[in-house]
């Protein structure tokens, strides 16, 4: 590539002016007329048979247009909700329909819908439904769920076991045979609730005489929603349009085709009216999927010098009541445990379990934070057991630069990177040796300081079409259409569907840089399936490396065609024409140039084009990357724990990330900040807790604690750049890295602080009461 001026520039986001003035358009903000409001009546029972639903009183309530039970709607669905392969083709799963008919399996499962003239009227009427349940025993605990004699959620499966699979590489027996040190540890990944600040929402408008459906949805995946609404409701795909307007955060929670999207569309079809559903927060807490929810049993074989030889682990994954669309995606952790380290062997077992809880699916990182958490905890457990410093343990085990591209035990090919570089930088930033001395001093004074390292390696950029077929059942790619207008302005349609990331700005930067167009002349369009071909939408830190590359390649194609037209206009040979900064000229005669605007004008006048050339300047690219991209980095947390209250205070948080070329560092840093905060949320605050009765105990934002401004420190961020060889821009991904790294960094610091108490591992979140109990279970004495 030419030397960049725009790619890599911290340009403020073009998305912002509307959002900071309150003139943005989230689903609930869109001007709509003639709306009917839908209220979804949800199961209050975790596990029960529906004996009957009496809707008579509700139907008679003021302002009510219709009430439908699941039974009344069942015949309308031509397919259940989609379930993808997600790394576990072996799994057994039941068909999952958008609404329950005769049995409910989690609190929050839809059982009926009420349609009324106002939202208030719909809520009032919902209270008048008489639903009779016959309670069944709830299955809450994963291990009890797969024990003999447990009540079974899905009779047709015979048990609550969705799968029990092995994912292994190398000689694990040899690794344990050769080990000096063997460690066993149970490590939990608590259930998390994503809490995008905008809850979900849908407006559906079905036009009966055209058999055409338009849906506005707060989704990460408008293109997939379009396909599946067509399939489930039996409407030709060409007649379905899905729009993702401004979307208020997703973090994976808006990555699937949801029951309410189908129900609103169906209600619109039944009533011939435009139907709106907006999710309440307390509804969101149980109706939108959860994440993580895993137990890991880990065994480690290591040498006394800190070399980790092998890891054997079982991941129990709580799928909740149904297998969600990407419900087993978190099993990707079984392929990634190795991280940036040279293990001799990995022996993984994955067990998926159905329980009477909200289904789980992708949440920021989806399997990668878990894999990182396990291997990073392993590194610290080995350090603790061998007495080797945690930084030294990591160095000893790192894959070296000269071993790249490295093939992992699971057959994945890492793209590039010297993993010691980010660690060195982070250690330097915290003055590591000095810090360890201070820690020792403070320990003498009775203060509990902990230092936690997390040297992560991430896989992202979904992705190579063949490989993603194993992940999602279909091959992925990047897509961009660049269309130059008569006056030289440009419209860029992208296949990604941002929901806060800010794709418009860096993608415009790529085009501006490549074509020499002014930034403001490039309009970026996304999230509307009526415009442009199928896109693959946004998740898994894929957009910059895959769709961003498609943007770049489209711009290159436009540039090359422009050069051909310029050669014709300049009456020169094509190979003599230079294109730079939006102008084309014959080599050596820069003053006699034609501008891109002049070229575009010519492109729409066939008589000014070379013979045989098609008119117009628009190019579409489908980019199928040859590999994933593999960002990496080192994060260090320094914490102090108040031994009287158990409260953790994060004193410093240092992050050094290498995500390849940074298209717009302002945006990259923002992604890192937010990611770190979410990972800290898991480490210290968040916990989706169910009672033994199957009721969600943390069902509001009063009980489910997401971090506030006063709970977080300033993060110190630095970056290194190892361009990815996978794409011409050298871009990796950064949307999830912060979350992938930070949970382990903080928990390693907490465990380090408490190591004088004989503590090896702490279940997250590290709440004050939990730490206090750990510190004082021996009457406050340190071992």
């Amino acid at each position, binding site marked *: 590539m030419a030397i960049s001026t725009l790619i890599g520039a911290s340009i403020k986001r073009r998305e912002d002016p509307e959002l900071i003035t309150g003139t943005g358009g989230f689903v*609930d*903000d869109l001007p709509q007329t003639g709306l009917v409001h839908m209220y979804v009546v949800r199961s209050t029972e975790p596990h029960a048979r529906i004996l009957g639903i009496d809707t008579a009183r509700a139907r008679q309530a003021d302002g009510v247009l219709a009430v439908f039970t699941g039974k009344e709607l069942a015949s309308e669905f031509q397919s259940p909700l989609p379930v993808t392969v997600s790394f576990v083709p072996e799994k057994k799963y039941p068909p999952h329909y958008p609404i329950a008919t005769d049995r409910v399996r989690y609190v929050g499962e839809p059982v009926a819908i009420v349609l009324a003239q106002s939202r208030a009227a719909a809520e009032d009427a919902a209270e008048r439904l008489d639903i009779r349940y016959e309670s069944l025993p709830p299955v809450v605990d994963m291990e009890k769920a797969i024990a003999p004699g447990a009540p079974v959620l899905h009779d047709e499966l015979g048990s609550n076991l969705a799968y029990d699979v092995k994912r292994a590489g190398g000689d694990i027996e040899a690794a344990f045979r050769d080990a000096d040190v063997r460690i066993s540890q149970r490590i939990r990944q608590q259930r998390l609730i994503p*809490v*995008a600040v905008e809850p979900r929402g849908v407006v559906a408008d079905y036009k009966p005489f055209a058999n055409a459906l338009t849906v506005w949805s707060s989704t990460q995946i408008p293109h997939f929603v379009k396909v599946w609404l067509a399939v489930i409701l039996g409407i030709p795909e060409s007649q379905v349009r899905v729009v993702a307007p401004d979307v208020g955060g997703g973090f994976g929670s808006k990555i699937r085709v949801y029951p309410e999207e189908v129900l609103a569309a169906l209600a619109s079809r039944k009533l011939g009216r435009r139907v709106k559903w907006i999710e309440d927060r307390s509804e969101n807490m149980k109706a939108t999927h959860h994440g993580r929810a895993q137990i890991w049993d880990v065994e480690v074989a290591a040498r006394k010098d800190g070399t980790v030889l092998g890891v054997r682990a079982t991941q129990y994954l709580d799928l909740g009541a149904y297998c969600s669309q990407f419900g087993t995606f978190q099993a990707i952790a079984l392929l990634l445990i190795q991280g940036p380290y040279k293990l001799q062997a990995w022996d993984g077992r994955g067990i998926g379990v159905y329980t009477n809880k909200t289904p789980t699916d992708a949440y920021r990182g989806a399997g990668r934070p878990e894999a990182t958490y396990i291997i990073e905890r392993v590194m610290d457990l080995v350090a603790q057991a061998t007495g080797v410093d945690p930084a030294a343990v990591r160095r000893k085990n790192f894959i070296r630069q000269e071993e790249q591209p490295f093939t992992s035990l699971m057959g994945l090919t890492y793209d590039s990177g010297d993993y010691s570089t980010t660690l060195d930088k982070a250690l330097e930033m915290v003055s590591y040796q000095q810090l360890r001395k201070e820690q020792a001093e403070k320990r003498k004074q009775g203060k509990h300081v902990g230092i936690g390292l997390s040297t992560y390696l991430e896989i992202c950029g979904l992705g190579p079409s063949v490989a993603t077929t194993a992940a999602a059942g279909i091959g992925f790619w990047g897509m961009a259409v660049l269309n130059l207008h008569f006056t030289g302005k440009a419209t860029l349609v992208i296949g990604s569907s941002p929901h806060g990331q800010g794709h418009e700005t860096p993608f415009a930067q790529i085009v501006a840089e490549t074509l020499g167009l002014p930034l403001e002349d490039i309009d970026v369009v996304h999230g509307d399936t009526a415009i442009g071909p199928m896109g693959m939408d946004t998740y898994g830190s894929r957009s910059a490396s895959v769709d961003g590359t498609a943007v770049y390649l489209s711009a290159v194609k436009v540039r090359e065609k422009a050069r051909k037209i310029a050669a014709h206009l300049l009456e020169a040979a094509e190979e003599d024409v230079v294109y730079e900064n939006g102008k084309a000229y014959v080599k050596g005669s820069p003053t006699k140039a034609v501008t891109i605007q002049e070229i575009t004008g010519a492109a729409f006048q066939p008589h000014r084009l070379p013979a045989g050339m098609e008119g117009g300047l628009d190019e579409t690219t489908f980019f199928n990357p040859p590999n994933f991209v593999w960002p990496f980095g080192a994060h260090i947390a320094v914490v102090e724990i108040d031994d009287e209250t158990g409260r953790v205070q994060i004193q410093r948080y240092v992050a050094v990330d290498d995500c390849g070329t940074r298209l717009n560092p302002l945006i990259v840093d*923002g*992604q890192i900040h937010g990611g770190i905060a979410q990972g800290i949320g898991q480490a210290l605050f968040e916990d989706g807790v169910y009672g033994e009765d199957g009721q969600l105990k943390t069902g509001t934002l009063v009980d489910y604690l997401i971090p506030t*401004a006063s709970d977080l420190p300033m*993060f110190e961020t630095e970056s290194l750049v190892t361009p990815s060889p996978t794409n011409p821009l050298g871009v990796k991904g950064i949307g999830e890295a912060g979350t992938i790294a930070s949970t382990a960094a903080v928990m390693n610091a907490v465990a380090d602080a408490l190591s004088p108490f004989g503590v090896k591992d702490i279940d997250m979140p590290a709440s004050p009461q939990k730490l206090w109990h750990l510190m004082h279970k021996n009457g406050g004495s340190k071992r």
Partner: protein
Amino acid sequence: MRHRVAMTINGTQYEHEVEPRTLLVYYIREQAGLTGTHIGCDTSSCGACTVEMDGHSVKSCTVFAVQADGAQITTIEGLAVGSQLHPLQQAFWDEHGLQCGYCTPGMIMAAKQLLERNPKPTEQEIRLGIEGNLCRCTGYQNIVKAIETAARTMAAQAGKEVKAPAAVS
């Protein structure tokens, strides 16, 4: 029973019949048609619905419209003067103080109150001043920076306004 309420929102008088249970946030969004004020929870936790009512920031999901009868309300739409952004809006843009933007209107309204009461807040005072507003995207880092930046801009502007008459006379 419906009640007639009248209030001034961003300098414009609005008057409607409402059910007493109508929350101020719904009145602002649905009757006045100002949809910049958002709803992010139902427990007064998230602050997305923050507006200014008679000079005080309030969570408009926890006020009935009938309680605001006769009030002066300012929402996010009332901050910019023509195309001139309020210093807080400008700073949120300049410092990348938002990502998805859903919490942003409420966050800016809370920050406005904070700076009115404390024009030169420390980092910790800023963090406590926005403790009633949840953001899931930014980790708050650039929000804190934006508020610091806005405080400087506003102090400089106030300085100019104070000095200006002296310079003229």
